[in-house]
């Protein structure tokens, strides 16, 4: 893996909170804590600039969400972008959904390379003309201009979530999408902003009975009636919207029995699922909990078919990680285009890749000090105990403030985007 061009996103003020490639991989969107969205576009390949082939450059930047104040509850609503999801491209413009804790917005990103000139009612500066002075009429003509990329909010889906939105997912019918918060999941039609259908509600009648929340949700990539949602107790429920309007009763329930030898006070916290993703094929789901990534076959509910240890050396550190709240960190996980490799982040700016076929895994680091542009990434290793070899890093030296929570994989090529706090790294696998 190489870093063809290190891309630094923003100043040190804003932390990247989500990363997502679009369906072709041509565009890469990031959202940050300040409510901004930055879209990168891949350079077109040209014979003149072979060395710049495939690099991503900034295409558009816009403020998606602003901080708001909820007067009823006297609370500030954060502008942080929790998730971005692209819609498939259907015309010249690009569409994406972005969401903060409370409001989902549909953005249209389009290019403008022509400008109308010769208005009747306003002059070239844009100032309105006095209608009494207009004695002739002319037809405005379109003249070429420098390419401008503009983002406009096309829909605002608000006031449907009492709790914090953690997921959005576009349905394969391309007409609807869902938004999930801690206790409810709503189904929206893209054209309708003042109405949504509640399809999952796990809020108990008595809030004192609350013991579980929804942590992530996603539509099946091919079957528009199927979706899954994960919980803080480490379970996954698969629901079929054809069964009933309110999908409170699941069609399938995925849960692995607890290993008695690993039981501790923190068992539930580390089993809490922070991300769930369907494979591109739709046959498998992948879940991320605090220490592992698991792959489940949709046809087998009682245990995962594969379990990968992300950083098992942290198992003996759970007390400290509970104290400093790191145990609550929500890591995401991603599939590669062919579903043969999975990737997830860890601490110390490490991220891990697992090859499902060869069962090999690798730990890589996203940092400026260790990777110069076009240099090959060196595999890293964490030393658990005993004698530390050269180039290994001991567990106690790990920097827990440098966490890689968000990563993305190009839909068809071996290009990955890794968000390390407020820096974005893009790596490519160039097979020579």
């Amino acid at each position, binding site marked *: 893996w190489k870093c063809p061009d290190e891309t630094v996103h923003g100043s040190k*003020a804003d932390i990247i909170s989500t990363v997502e490639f679009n369906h072709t991989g041509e565009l890469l969107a990031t959202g940050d*804590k300040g409510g901004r969205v930055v879209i990168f576009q891949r350079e077109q390949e040209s014979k003149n600039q072979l060395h710049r082939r495939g690099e991503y450059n900034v295409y558009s930047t816009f403020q998606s969400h602003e*901080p708001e*104040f909820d007067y*009823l*509850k*006297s*609370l*500030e*609503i954060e502008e942080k972008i929790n998730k971005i999801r692209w819609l498939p491209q259907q015309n010249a413009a690009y569409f994406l959904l972005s969401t903060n*804790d409370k409001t989902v917005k549909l953005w249209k990103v*389009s290019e403008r390379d*022509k*400008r*109308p000139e010769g208005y009747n009612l306003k002059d070239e500066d844009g100032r309105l003309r006095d209608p009494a002075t207009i004695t002739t009429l002319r037809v*405005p003509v379109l003249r070429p201009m420098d390419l401008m990329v503009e983002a406009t909010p096309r829909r605002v889906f608000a*006031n*449907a979530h*009492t709790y914090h939105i953690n997921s959005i997912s576009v349905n394969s019918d391309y007409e609807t999408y869902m938004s999930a918060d*801690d206790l409810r999941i709503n189904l929206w039609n893209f*054209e*309708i*902003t*003042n*109405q*949504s*259908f*509640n399809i999952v509600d796990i809020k108990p009648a*008595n*809030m*004192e009975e*609350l*013991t*579980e*929340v929804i*942590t992530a949700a996603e539509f099946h990539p091919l079957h528009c009636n199927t979706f899954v949602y994960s919980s*803080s107790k480490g379970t996954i429920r698969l629901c079929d919207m054809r069964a009933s*309007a309110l999908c409170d009763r699941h069609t399938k329930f995925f849960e692995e029995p607890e290993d008695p030898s690993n*039981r*501790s*006070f*923190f068992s*539930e*916290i580390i089993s*809490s699922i922070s991300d769930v993703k369907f494979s591109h094929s739709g046959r498998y789901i992948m879940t991320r909990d605090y220490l592992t990534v698991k792959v489940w076959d949709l046809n087998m509910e009682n245990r995962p078919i594969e379990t990968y240890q992300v950083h098992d*050396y942290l*198992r*003996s*550190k*759970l*007390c*400290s990680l*509970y*104290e*400093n709240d790191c145990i*609550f960190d929500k890591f995401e996980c991603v599939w590669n285009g062919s579903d043969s490799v999975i990737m997830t982040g860890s601490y110390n700016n490490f991220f891990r890749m697992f090859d499902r076929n060869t069962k090999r895994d690798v730990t890589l680091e996203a940092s400026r000090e260790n990777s110069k542009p076009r240099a090959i990434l060196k595999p890293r290793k964490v030393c658990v*105990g005993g004698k*530390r070899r050269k180039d290994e890093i*001991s*567990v106690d030296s790990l920097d827990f403030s440098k966490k890689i929570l968000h990563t993305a994989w190009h839909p068809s090529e071996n290009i990955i985007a890794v968000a390390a706090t407020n820096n974005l790294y893009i790596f490519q696998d160039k097979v020579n």
Partner: protein
Amino acid sequence: MLGKGVKRKREEEEEEDLTSQDWWLEETTPSPNPEEGASPAPLPPSSLFNLSIFKLHHGLRRGEPDLRHLVLVVNTLRRIQSSMALESSPPEPPCPAPVDPLPVAPDAPLCTSVSALLDDLSHIEGLCDTQTSFSEDIPLSRPPETGLDPGRPAPLGSLELLLEDGLEGLFDDIDTSMYDCELWPNLKTDSGETEDKIQGQGLDVSELDYLMDVLVGTQTL
């Protein structure tokens, strides 16, 4: 009149987090000496209990509580509390490494921390009414020197009561079902006619936008 919320800079937030975590950092600074071994000394259940109470308290003080965080902390608290209540059975270790046997609960600090939590909770807006009933019912709200025998399980029993009520109180604060928007009563019912009506309105707006775009030339027909 409430003013518009001010966006805090990241630096300010960082400082605040560090301040609140300071006293934990003092206790648990990991030793840089690699020969000390991989795992630090695990905390006894009573310390974990205190820590969890602190997290709960800190979580509630935040602008809007993180429900997932709260639920996980509360569930962990329940586990620790039930483990502490089982004084006769072997204590459940907080970490796989062996721990000391469950010590006689240091009631004074426990009572103090819980009373402090009660006092602080009563200052949180909206919990005042619920909180006065707590202080009447729960013996622990009385000063510790009014006869709490260190050996008795009574403090834990009272804590159980406290926690149950406290949990209800905690989640009631988050429960905003009374504020749930009733602007769209059709949410759960299949109402074809209203859907058509709303659909009609939606079409008009988007079609108008489209037409305007065409007129100014940003869209081609």
